[in-house]
């Protein structure tokens, strides 16, 4: 018994199987995590090696190069990027996307073991550390406080950070801008000298005074007592009265030589929220954690935590990545619902019956829901890729069911009982339904084999489409016949408004059928002209390809900008801060749509793990700006970014600035073109990079250009004279420590209060360490107790230290990173870079390469192009075996070039650049477009087999198949329109996909309906003639033979 016979015989079982699928699907859906994109995983592994005291170039030769040489052998490696700076070498290994990170890590470890014995003594063991996009914070909170500033760190650490760290999925929580309390003991060097005291001496005294010591146990009577001295200060002011030495038989107290100050750390990162000093809290998720769920948990906890805070502390949200994700997914979900309604309406219009429409419509949720089961099992998330796959699928899943249902109702209208009609009608069509599904599978299954970035993104689409299509096929040959057998009745027209309306629609369709068959007749007559016309259209459209720009991913407007401003190295914090505040004001004046403007300046403390990951300094300002939702403002984020660039350009004191949109990098972020300049000579490459940056910036289409190599950093170098040191009984190490204690300070002890520990730091008061002369005047004591000035022992100079040495693929490199202005596509930016490179003479020993998003785009496009060829071959194979012919599939394949024509036309009319999503649309089109051709040719062949002539068959088939073709095309095209014109948040990402499919399919359907029947007729007639000739020859031969006999 066939599967459809079984399902019609057992309606309850059949129904319940699908009910079960729906229930499991809905359950899986409720468990699915929401994310923006499929999990990209880690493709970067860092190897950190420190070598204390080595300069950048020493690190490069002694550490980076040997490590690079062995690490180069790690498998699946794409690039090696290395940074050699003072004391540390950072090697970033970039792998292909989708590799097994554990395996790669082990491989790296093995390779490192090989080389470890060859590294110089004193080089630490290399640390391997996996780095992924997940290190990007998911939530950034602003903190404003009026009174609690000094205690802010403690309050936040205790009441916000610790509880939040315990929330599931939270990786690290860092506080930025809230300085930690510190007890500073500021010494006056002149007083110290006159009393013969030293910073070290004071440090030791404090250390010895601030002690609680256990002294043992003592039995007294029947009890045992433990004995303890309580020497710890319970009030920091008590330190003032410590005796630190004696002079002329009189005690010298600490207050005589120093000031005890309860303050905060001296060098801190300052954070300003909308121009008001405050702090920010940065929350990162755990590797593999889900952004949306984690952020949801945090936001649930936050209100109760906020209640515990003092009243003057206000917490706000600077940005929340989960909001962006939810909004994006939300607008895609809306699009899906619109598509669903549109598809059902189209089916209703064509079929004209509620029951039939219901039977068809039920297939949609059943097959879509099945994909949720797949997502849940494989641990994938609900994201832009999976949801846009579903929106494409809606228009396709109904096709099979429609074919089956149409045949069943034909049988019922001829008088069969629904039950037997369901079985036998399905039997007649199921083979062709399977065949047309195979064509779609030939498109989507190869997608699952893609590798690289495109692979990670589109593998999921490949699987989802495969599953949805297979389930819809199964539903159409089991559920549809079963439901038809139960629900369908012989058609009878009622006189409701809908029936009248639908009747009118049907009469129009009848007219269209008639008109189309007439046109077909004409086309068959004017064959040559049609071919010439089609060729001209196709070739003309290819010229459009030259002018259509390309891009990678359209960047998403999520209302966020990050700006990095660099002042000249060594600029004081006060200067940078003033500029930061001024810029904040300028931004506030210029952007009424700005909700939040946060910036930080200065070096973060050691406790701020997040801050340490990024470049920072007193000369650097990092802005985080958030704007209102895209739908609520007139200016796009690109426009705002361009204005920001202009504003920043007005400040001559700014060395470099860089404005980034949204997330930055990757899919949906801002696209970049990176000019990589390889060369060994620092000066030559610096000069060349500067020339290129200048040239590209002359073009207004280039928004910004950033040179990766840092400038030389000014620093004060103290060169001790070893001979003089030796004479005084000192060595470089001790002398350096002594100087460090005076400037950086020595940690004497910790001050405890309410269970918290605060550092007690002893050093010279700030006014005694302001210039080079202050250093020269510092007094050090030799082991013999003699005082000596630093100036006598060392040469003190201001010098410039060479910057970080960057390497890629084992050569020195400087990068010029370019971003585009508003509405400038990636290909134009690459063009600018290429032009700049062409115009500049390449000095000897320098090679260049274009990288960045541009490279990702080129690689992904190449992958997709290869995929298209593979898909074309597979589709041809499926069709050839279905028709058992090489000619008919060849005829049908002709509809594909016109899909390309439609896409090119659509892209140029709407001014959309060709991106990855549009390329993907082109791949999908192959399958969708070919399906129409198959329907048409299959029926034409059927008519010929029934004995009609070629011309008759072509016209009759056209007339009879126009309606199903229109119906499937309209469902798919209408399904794409909400995707194509969506305006919600994140819609930029799928607009090109919807647009390509809609334009390509519309155009190619129009051509298919004319060109394919005509080509078929030509080939078929040629075949008939050839056969007739052969037969004639055979007849003549046998006649000749009989004459001979």
């Amino acid at each position, binding site marked *: 018994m066939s599967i459809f016979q079984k399902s019609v015989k057992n309606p309850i079982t059949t129904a319940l199987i699908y009910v079960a699928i729906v229930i499991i699907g809905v359950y899986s859906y409720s468990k699915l995590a929401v994310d923006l994109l499929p999990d990209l995983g880690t493709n970067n592994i860092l190897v950190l090696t420190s070598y204390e005291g080595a300069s950048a170039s020493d690190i490069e030769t002694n550490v980076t190069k040997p490590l690079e040489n062995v690490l180069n052998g790690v498998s699946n490696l794409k690039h090696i990027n290395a940074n050699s700076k003072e004391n540390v070498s950072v090697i970033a290994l970039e792998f292909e996307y989708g590799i097994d990170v554990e395996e790669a890590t082990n491989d790296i470890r093995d390779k490192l073991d090989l080389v470890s014995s060859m590294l110089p003594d004193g080089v630490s063991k290399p640390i391997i550390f996996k780095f992924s996009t997940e290190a990007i914070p998911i939530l950034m909170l602003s903190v404003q406080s009026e009174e609690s500033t000094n205690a802010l760190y403690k309050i936040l650490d205790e009441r916000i950070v610790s509880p939040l760290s315990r929330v599931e999925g939270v990786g690290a929580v860092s506080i930025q801008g809230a300085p930690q309390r510190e007890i500073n003991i500021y010494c006056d060097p002149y007083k110290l000298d006159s009393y013969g005291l030293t910073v070290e001496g004071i440090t030791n005294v404090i250390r010895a005074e601030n002690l609680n010591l256990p002294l043992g146990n003592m039995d007294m009577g029947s009890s045992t007592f433990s004995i303890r001295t309580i020497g710890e200060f319970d009030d920091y002011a008590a330190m003032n009265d410590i005796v630190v030495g004696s002079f002329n038989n009189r005690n010298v107290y600490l207050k005589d030589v120093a000031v005890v100050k309860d303050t905060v750390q001296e060098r801190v990162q300052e954070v300003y929220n909308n121009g008001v000093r405050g702090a920010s809290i940065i929350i990162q998720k755990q590797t593999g954690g889900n952004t949306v769920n984690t952020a949801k948990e945090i936001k649930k906890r936050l209100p109760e935590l906020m209640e515990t805070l003092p009243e003057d502390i206000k917490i706000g949200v600077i940005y929340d990545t989960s909001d962006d994700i939810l909004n994006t997914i939300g607008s895609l979900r809306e699009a899906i619902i619109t598509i669903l309604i549109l598809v059902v309406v189209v089916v209703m219009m064509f079929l004209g019956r509620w029951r039939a429409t219901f039977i068809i419509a039920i297939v949609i949720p059943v097959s879509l829901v099945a994909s949720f089961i797949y997502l849940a099992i494989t641990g994938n998330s609900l994201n832009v890729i999976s949801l846009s796959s579903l929106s494409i699928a809606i228009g396709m899943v109904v096709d099979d069911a429609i074919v089956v249902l149409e045949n069943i109702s034909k049988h019922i209208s001829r*008088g069969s009982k629904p039950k037997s009609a369901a*079985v036998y009608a399905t039997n*007649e069509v199921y083979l062709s339904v399977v065949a047309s599904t195979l064509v779609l599978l030939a498109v989507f299954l190869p997608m699952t084999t893609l590798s690289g970035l495109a692979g990670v993104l589109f593998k999921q689409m490949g699987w989802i489409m495969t599953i949805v299509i297979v389930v819809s096929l199964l539903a159409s040959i089991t559920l549809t016949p079963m439901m038809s057998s139960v629900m369908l009745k012989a058609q009878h027209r009622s006189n409701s408004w809908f029936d009248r309306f639908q009747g009118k629609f049907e009469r129009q369709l009848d007219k269209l059928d008639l008109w189309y068959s007439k046109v077909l007749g004409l086309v068959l007559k004017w064959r040559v002209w049609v071919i010439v016309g089609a060729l001209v259209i196709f070739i003309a459209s290819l010229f459009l390809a030259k002018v259509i720009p390309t891009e990678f991913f359209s960047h998403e407007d999520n209302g966020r900008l990050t700006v990095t401003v660099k002042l000249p190295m060594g600029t004081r914090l006060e200067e940078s801060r003033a500029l930061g505040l001024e810029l904040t004001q300028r931004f506030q004046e210029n952007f009424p749509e700005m909700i939040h403007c946060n910036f930080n300046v200065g070096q973060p403390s050691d406790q701020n793990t997040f801050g340490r990951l990024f470049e920072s300094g007193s000369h650097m300002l990092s802005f985080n700006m958030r704007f209102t939702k895209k739908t609520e403002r007139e200016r796009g984020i690109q426009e705002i970014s361009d204005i920001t660039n202009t504003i920043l350009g007005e400040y001559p004191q700014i060395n470099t600035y860089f404005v980034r949109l949204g997330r930055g990098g990757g899919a949906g972020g801002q696209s970049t073109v990176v000019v990589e300049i390889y060369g060994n000579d620092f000066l030559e490459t610096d000069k060349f990079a500067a020339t290129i940056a200048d040239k590209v910036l002359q073009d207004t289409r280039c928004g910004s250009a950033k040179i990766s190599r840092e400038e030389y950093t000014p620093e004060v170098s103290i060169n001790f004279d070893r001979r003089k040191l030796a004479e005084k009984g000192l060595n470089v190490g001790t002398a350096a420590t002594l100087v460090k204690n005076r400037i950086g300070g020595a940690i004497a002890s910790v001050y405890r209060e309410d269970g918290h520990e605060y550092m007690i730091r002893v050093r010279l008061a700030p006014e005694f360490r302001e210039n080079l002369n202050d250093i020269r005047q510092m007094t050090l004591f030799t082991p013999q107790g003699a005082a000596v000035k630093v100036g006598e022992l060392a040469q003190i100079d201001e010098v410039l230290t060479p910057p970080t040495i960057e390497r890629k693929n084992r050569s020195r490199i400087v990068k010029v990173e370019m971003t585009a202005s508003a509405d400038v596509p990636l290909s134009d930016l690459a063009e600018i870079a290429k032009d700049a490179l062409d115009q500049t003479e390449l000095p000897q020993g320098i090679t260049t390469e274009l990288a960045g998003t541009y490279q990702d785009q080129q690689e992904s496009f190449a992958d997709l192009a290869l995929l298209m060829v593979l898909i074309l071959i597979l589709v041809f194979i499926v069709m050839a075996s279905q028709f058992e012919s090489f000619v008919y599939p060849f005829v049908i394949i002709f509809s594909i070039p016109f899909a390309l024509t439609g896409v090119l036309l659509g892209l140029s009319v709407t001014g959309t650049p060709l991106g990855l999503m549009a390329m993907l649309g082109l791949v999908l089109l192959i399958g969708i477009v070919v399906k129409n051709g198959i329907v048409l040719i299959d029926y034409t062949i059927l008519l010929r087999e*029934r004995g009609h002539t070629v011309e008759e068959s072509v016209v009759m088939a056209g007339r009879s198949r126009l309606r199903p073709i229109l119906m499937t095309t309209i469902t798919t095209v209408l399904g794409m329109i909400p995707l194509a014109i969506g305006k919600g948040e994140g819609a930029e990402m799928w607009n090109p996909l919807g647009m390509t499919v809609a334009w390509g399919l519309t155009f190619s359907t129009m051509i298919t309906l004319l060109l394919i029947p005509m080509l078929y007729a030509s080939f078929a007639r040629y075949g008939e003639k050839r056969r007739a000739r052969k037969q004639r020859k055979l007849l003549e031969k046998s006649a000749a033979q009989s004459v001979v006999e």
Partner: protein
Amino acid sequence: MKAVFISAYQAFYQDILELFNQLEIRGFTYWDEVQGRGHFNGEPHYGSHAWPTLNCAFLTMIEDHQVEPLMQKLRELDKTAPQQGLRAFVLPCLEML
């Protein structure tokens, strides 16, 4: 005794079976899938690409008095769906085992 050969579109299977039950015809032979085409109008039933439908066939040996009611009922059945095709032929049955 008469032999009645019924060749009909597959979907009539259930109906014909019901007729047999009504008329208390117990014995018959049934072919699930047979191909054929009629003399006059009607579509061929070949189960092929061009003519995807198929017929089924019954052969039953019945008493002479049962023939007319059966033929009558079959005629009525044919009228309910004339396009689907249902034909019956009555032949003499000469001997039985």
